[in-house]
């Protein structure tokens, strides 16, 4: 019994290691052929195991899925080599999130996720850290979700005087078709 559980845990560990995107327990169950309950139990065990000091990685829950990630306190040491890798992918996701926030602010995480169709935590955290967005308030809706908007640094970064200077979609069309110049 004990070893059975250990084996299941080992399998799920391997699956989490191989994935690069968050995986929810239903998907892990499908991939591993285990029951959802077994998966959840194993993930809990793994989470606990990796939370120990001695481990440099941990299992974090992102947008309803699990992913293995280096612990935050180590990022400082890792950033030089790993911070810039894959930047095209990172920048695309970040830019997407930022554009949604800029054009639809104030907007909640849930709304962003429903627009992009993927979890937005990481990107929101990145943009917050970067000072391009900020919490602007709470939405008057169940759960009072946090709303995000752009910051002064955002304006500075994009050389805008004011948020009113954000170009509009019909500006794109104008440019594209060179209608009104």
């Amino acid at each position, binding site marked *: 019994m004990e070893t059975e559980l250990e084996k299941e845990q080992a399998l799920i560990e391997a699956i989490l290691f191989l994935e690069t995107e968050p995986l929810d327990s239903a998907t892990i169950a499908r991939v591993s052929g285990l029951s959802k309950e077994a998966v959840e139990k194993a993930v809990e065990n793994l989470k606990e195991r990796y939370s120990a000091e001695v481990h440099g990685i941990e299992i974090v829950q992102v947008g309803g899925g699990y992913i*293995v990630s280096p612990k935050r306190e180590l990022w400082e040491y890792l950033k030089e080599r790993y911070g810039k890798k894959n930047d095209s992918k990172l920048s695309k996701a970040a830019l997407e999130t930022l554009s949604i926030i800029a054009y639809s602010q104030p907007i909640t995480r849930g709304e962003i996720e429903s627009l992009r169709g993927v979890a937005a935590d990481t990107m929101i955290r990145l943009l917050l850290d970067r000072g391009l967005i900020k919490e602007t308030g709470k939405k008057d809706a169940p759960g009072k979700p946090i709303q995000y908007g*752009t910051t002064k640094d955002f304006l500075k970064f994009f050389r805008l005087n004011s948020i009113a200077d954000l170009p509009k979609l019909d500006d794109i069309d104008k440019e594209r078709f060179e209608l009104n110049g």
Partner: protein
Amino acid sequence: MSEDATTLADAKDSAQRFHLKDFEGPLDLLLFLIKKNEINIYDIPISEITEQYLEYLRYATKIDLDNLTDFYDMAATLVYIKSRMLLPVEIDLDEEIEDPRRVLVDKLIEYQKFKKLTDLMEEKGMEAEWIIERKKIQRPLPFPDDEVLWEQIDIWDLLQTFSTVMTSLTSERIIDLYEEVSINEKMTLIDELLETKGDFMFSDLIVHRNSMMDVVCAFLAILECVKERVIRILQNKLFGDIRICAYGERIENGNGAGEGTGAH
């Protein structure tokens, strides 16, 4: 089936096999013949093997020229050894007799050794037939000071991206993309002005003076903000510009409002 047909089929079969490169080279073919005839490698009946070897070669018409040369080289060697074996050997007790097959046998044994090693490597390679590894690096760490990441982005990239995101949405999620302004946008602008100026005029909120939508949204945004107790609004004269300041800010009655207007 006639006898002829069978022979032909055999020959064809052999040629086919040969053509399919069952043999990696002349040494491989020789080893095959030795094994097939259950011959002791240290005592090869050279004339018999030579005959069989040439027989195989006759069927092998289609192998590439490079290898063919190598196969014929070996044929020549075999014939040479055969002729040496036929020569009477003068027995000299002082000298060890050099078996003409010796060099070939050494070669065959060495080759056999590598064939064996190749098999071992193949087994090892089979283990590597499947690989299971992560396809790409783990998600990059979102580091705040990732300057390179942001270097070449301008506001048009942002709009373009937004446009792409929006147009890729399914119809149920579509919002009016071409709405010139929105109340949300005006509220954002209010936040910004509160932050940068502290207090400001309603006219500051109007970006496109000749756009009705712009004015209406600005009004609705103000009403919304008042409701949310984000701002207070003050008007010092009828139809005058409306002054807006943060809700919490203390204002001395009409006086303050007048000053504010005067400042603008």
